């Protein structure tokens, strides 16, 4: 039996004594009401920013980003609701007082002031609103990262970031706590709990109430006390007649009126129960009165409740219902019990007024059977057997006393899908670049599930079936990473160290593209992510390779038969990258350049340069201005002519000043870099406010200086020789 003191205080509440903290709702689902004003957002879309400081200790791999985003976005895409969140990027600001942005903050040093030592608070959502009409001006979610440990992988003793953010996001949008045990807005949370990640029907109804898009089906009515007055903040529960699921709960307005929005067409029962027990008036932060001076009942009574058939888009009035007198029955359920369809679960229910023998605990679902295992005046141990085929959702428990009194625990049982599990991946190694499509194999994958790989959400997930999911892996630094999968019902699983990111080389180009079949051609290969331990094979033969950088390697070709050859690039632990017919082995010997002269020319071009060497027949082009270390770039010289098999000549092109490489390409793709560099002298400055001012055409530039010097020196030497001879 309930203690006399407890009963007394409930009776005190009946007579309307002021309460310290009371709450209620206007049109349902426990919206925050302060001073008679219901808090609301002016816009359907709420922008938010992730405050970047403070998260590094919470999720080293950056997985908090996906967790926070999914926590907020869980309130979107609710049938009947227009509510949306818009991610406005990351910010270094932690200033929650600024109305210009709505932040999600990890406060690791109490910079916000909300977490002085000893508060015991895990997170807070301060809401700034306009007094005149309740319009929300700003709201920010602040996690107490100084005193608590958070995670995204349900590590023991840590608070789940997504779970916490989902709940706090409910406050942010203007919702108060919910009396439904399985609701994300249920006022209690434990470490490692994930239940709040996904919205219950109750929460979804709240999203509809906040931002309805109209056209939804509705039930409404009015609940009255035994004395005939309107009951304020009574819990109204809507039950699906056919499967017994609780569709949602709402609280009545101060005058007893209630409305449930966002219902689908169907047949429903309606019950009414006081807001007390595990979730009581003090868990609400608004200031509507809470009446508890009545006993629970169904519209039409528990045994034969009225059936309300609701058509699509219909607004149906259930009328008035007078509730029975208060009873000593009260349950103190603190959390819903999760059970899989086709299984059973034994658990203990606590409360008061459970006089032995006089109490039966029942479900109205044809899928759920409750059997008593044991009990006393303040507890019952029961076994809930859930048959296979039971729809996923929340189910109420009904405490039926032999005296006729009824107590209801809304959402006491939650039937959940099979928990997902990952067995294997199609790939064990992927490129650090990401973008590869891999398959995840396991069980219990639900449509709409999402995957986080190494802390980053997979770019794209394609649900194949309950055992197969295809995802595009995100880019990541090298190393082993975890793969986490979360179903829409918030159940998740992790396969640790499941995937290794390695640098898979990316081929861009090589030069020259052809070489002598007896090997020994020096080939410059360009690309990305070449490992210092990279191996290169041509047509399966190992090639001597010099690693220059992650973007350039130098390969000395092995022997090859004339014809096309495949290049294979092999980074340690990474999959081979094959480039088919990337190189051509030819029977002719590679060209060689032993020297060229002059090695200096005017930047404006025109210098006649002779190149000496071997196998210089059939030159296709000579490039000047080549990056001598990479072989890239350059401009083709002009007037190329083969003077002999060992000599060609070409005029230098116009090019910017500096020392640059020179390379020769033959018509068949063979080529060679010339030794040394060609120096392009700066072009003469003509006009301007500084420097040398010359007469156009009178001076061909400093590029001709060596010629002058040679002539001068030649004449001087000749004169000296002559002189000696004369002397």
């Amino acid at each position, binding site marked *: 039996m309930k203690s006399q003191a407890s009963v007394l205080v409930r009776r005190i509440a009946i007579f309307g*004594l002021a309460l*310290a903290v009371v709450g209620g709702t206007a049109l349902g689902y426990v919206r925050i009401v302060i*001073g008679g004003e219901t808090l609301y957002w002016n816009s359907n879309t709420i922008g938010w920013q992730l405050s970047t400081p403070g998260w590094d200790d919470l999720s080293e791999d950056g997985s908090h980003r996906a967790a926070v985003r999914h926590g907020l976005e869980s309130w979107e895409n609710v049938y009947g609701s227009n509510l949306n969140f818009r991610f406005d990027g990351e910010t270094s600001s932690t200033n929650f007082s*600024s109305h210009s942005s709505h932040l999600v903050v990890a406060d690791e040093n*109490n910079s916000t002031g*909300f977490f002085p030592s000893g*508060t015991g608070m895990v997170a*807070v959502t301060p809401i700034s609103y*306009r007094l005149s009409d309740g319009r929300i001006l700003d709201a920010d979610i602040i996690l107490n990262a100084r005193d608590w440990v958070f995670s995204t992988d349900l590590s023991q003793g840590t608070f789940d970031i997504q779970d916490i953010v989902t709940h706090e996001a409910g406050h942010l949008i203007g919702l108060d706590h919910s009396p439904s045990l399985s609701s994300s807005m249920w006022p209690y949370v434990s470490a490692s709990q994930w239940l709040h990640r996904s919205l219950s029907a109750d929460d979804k109804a709240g999203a509809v109430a906040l931002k309805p898009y109209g056209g939804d089906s509705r039930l409404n009515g009015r609940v009255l006390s035994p004395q005939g007055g309107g009951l304020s903040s009574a819990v109204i529960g809507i039950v699906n007649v056919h499967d017994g699921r609780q569709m949602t709960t709402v609280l009545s307005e101060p005058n007893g009126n209630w409305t449930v929005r966002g219902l689908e067409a169907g047949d429903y029962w309606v019950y009414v129960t006081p807001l007390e027990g595990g979730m009581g008036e003090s868990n609400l932060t608004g200031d509507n009165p809470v009446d508890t001076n009545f006993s629970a009942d169904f519209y039409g009574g528990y045994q034969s409740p009225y059936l309300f058939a609701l058509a699509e888009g219909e607004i149906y009035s259930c009328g008035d219902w007078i509730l029975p007198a208060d009873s000593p029955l009260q349950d103190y359920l603190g959390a819903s019990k999760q059970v899989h369809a086709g299984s059973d679960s034994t658990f203990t229910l606590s409360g008061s007024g459970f006089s032995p023998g006089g109490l039966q605990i029942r479900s109205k679902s044809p899928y759920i059977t409750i059997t008593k295992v044991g009990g006393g005046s303040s507890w019952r141990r029961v076994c809930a057997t859930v048959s296979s085929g039971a729809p996923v959702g929340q189910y109420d428990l009904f405490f039926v006393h032999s005296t006729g009194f009824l107590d209801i625990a809304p959402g006491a049982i939650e039937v959940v899908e099979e928990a997902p599990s990952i067995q294997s991946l199609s790939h064990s190694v992927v490129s650090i670049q990401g973008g590869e499509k891999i398959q995840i194999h396991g069980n219990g994958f639900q449509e709409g599930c999402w995957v986080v790989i190494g802390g980053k959400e997979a770019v794209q997930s394609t649900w194949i079936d309950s055992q197969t999911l295809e995802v595009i892996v995100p880019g990541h630094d090298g190393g082993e990473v975890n793969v986490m999968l979360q179903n829409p019902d918030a159940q998740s699983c992790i396969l640790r160290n499941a995937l290794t990111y390695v640098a898979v080389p990316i081929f861009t180009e090589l030069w020259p593209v052809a070489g002598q079949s007896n090997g020994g051609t020096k080939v410059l290969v360009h690309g990305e992510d070449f490992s210092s331990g990279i191996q290169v094979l041509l047509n399966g033969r190992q090639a001597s390779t010099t690693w220059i950088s992650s973007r350039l390697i130098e390969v000395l070709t092995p022997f090859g038969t004339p014809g096309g050859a495949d290049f294979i690039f092999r980074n340690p632990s990474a999959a081979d990258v094959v480039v088919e017919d990337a190189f051509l082995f030819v029977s002719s010997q590679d060209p060689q350049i032993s020297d060229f002269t002059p090695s200096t020319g005017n930047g404006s071009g025109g210098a006649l340069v002779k190149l000496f060497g071997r196998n210089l027949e059939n030159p296709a082009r000579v490039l000047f201005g080549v990056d001598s270390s990479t072989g890239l770039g350059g401009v083709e010289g002009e007037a190329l002519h083969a003077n002999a098999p060992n000599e060609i000549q070409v005029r230098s092109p116009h090019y910017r000043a500096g020392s640059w490489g020179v390379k020769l390409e033959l018509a068949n793709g063979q080529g060679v870099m010339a030794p040394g560099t060609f120096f392009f002298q700066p072009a003469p400055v003509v006009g301007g406010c500084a420097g040398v001012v010359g007469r156009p055409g009178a001076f061909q530039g400093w590029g001709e200086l060596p010629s002058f010097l040679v002539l001068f020196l030649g004449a001087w030497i000749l004169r000296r020789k002559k002189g000696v001879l004369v002397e």
Partner: protein
Amino acid sequence: MATLSASSVAEGSNLADLVSDADWIAEVETINKRFELSDDGSIQTVFTFSAITPMKGSVASIDEVRIPGGVAAGRGLHIPGMPRIEVGDHHILFLSKESVVQRWRLPVRLSAGAFRVRQARPGAGRTVVRALADQQEPEIQDYQAFRTQVLHEIASQRSR
């Protein structure tokens, strides 16, 4: 496993934890409250408490305590889970340390740290009502018994 209130996600636990975490415990009557708009735009309520029984920490006979939230300049700052304290109320309060910059104290575990003392009816004994419905705790307790428990717990923790 600890059960936590997720409003602003404050832990709702037993008296020993409350006493341990609180920096300031007192039985007080609220004799005044005013709202202040801080330079950073946040709103705080400055409560003036008349200490009936200082229990732990530095409690002045007339003590001013700043708690975030309130109304000022045409707007309000609402902290979900914060207990409502009105002038004339009689409480046993468990408050945290003071924030260094803002000088805020918060009720330990928000509503779990505020026990309101009530006179049930003329001639009847007084009770304390904690503004938190935790199934592990009775909603209502006898005032004298609770007060004795608090003092005993404080003394017990001091002696350790």
